[in-house]
């Protein structure tokens, strides 16, 4: 188990992705799954960086756990910003023609569709979003 805590800023994305990649390597994750997981991590982290603290700066933590019994990884994101459940929103319509499409909500939709499990809870004053997926 390893944890990274950073200021929740978009410019720290590469640090978060480097940490994720390093841990996935240690867990013996294949390149194919690693890419998919990194995309999910980016979408979740960038959402926190953009919205959790408004104009203030706060912390975001990323906790990575290997679950060898089920060949999976569990990643938990925590922030102490505005309570926000990204899973409570309706999915965007992905059947619209290009002209009518917008990009809002696509990131979290990608996370939901590519990860095995995505859970949200607000606990001890923190947003906790957990993804679990096969590696």
């Amino acid at each position, binding site marked *: 188990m390893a944890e990274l805590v950073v200021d929740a800023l*978009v*410019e720290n*994305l*590469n640090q978060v992705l480097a940490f994720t990649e390093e841990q996935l390597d240690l867990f013996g994750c294949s390149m*194919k799954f690693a*890419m*998919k997981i*990194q*995309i999910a991590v*980016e*979408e979740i982290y*960038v959402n926190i960086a953009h919205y959790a603290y408004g104009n203030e700066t706060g912390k975001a933590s990323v906790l990575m756990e290997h679950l060898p019994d089920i060949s999976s990884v569990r990643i938990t994101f925590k922030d102490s910003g505005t309570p926000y459940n990204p899973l409570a929103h309706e999915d965007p319509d*992905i*059947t619209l*023609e*290009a*002209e009518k*499409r917008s*990009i809002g909500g*696509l*990131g979290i*939709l*990608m996370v939901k*569709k*590519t990860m095995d499990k995505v859970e949200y809870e607000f606990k001890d004053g923190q947003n906790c979003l957990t993804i679990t997926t096969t590696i």
Partner: protein
Amino acid sequence: MDIKKALDGENLTISLTGRLDTLTSPELEKELQESLSGVKNLVFDFADLEYISSAGLRVLLSAHKQMFNNGNMVVKNINETVSEVFEVTGFSDVLNIE
């Protein structure tokens, strides 16, 4: 991310190497703003593109909308990761993928 452009008359090919993510997408957006004038056929060659996130999708959608009325846009040589992103977001139905 590395962006290579090859302009041949009204045909522009843009080849990307690396990751089209939140941090790199603005570079592509800027390149497109500067390059699309007079272009009728836009080709994205993604042979060396490792990965794309929703920030990259936003730039592609914007280019697609811009080209829709004036010409044609094609995305080619996508890898498995990029293909899956296009599938789950419905972009595979919108973009012309070769």
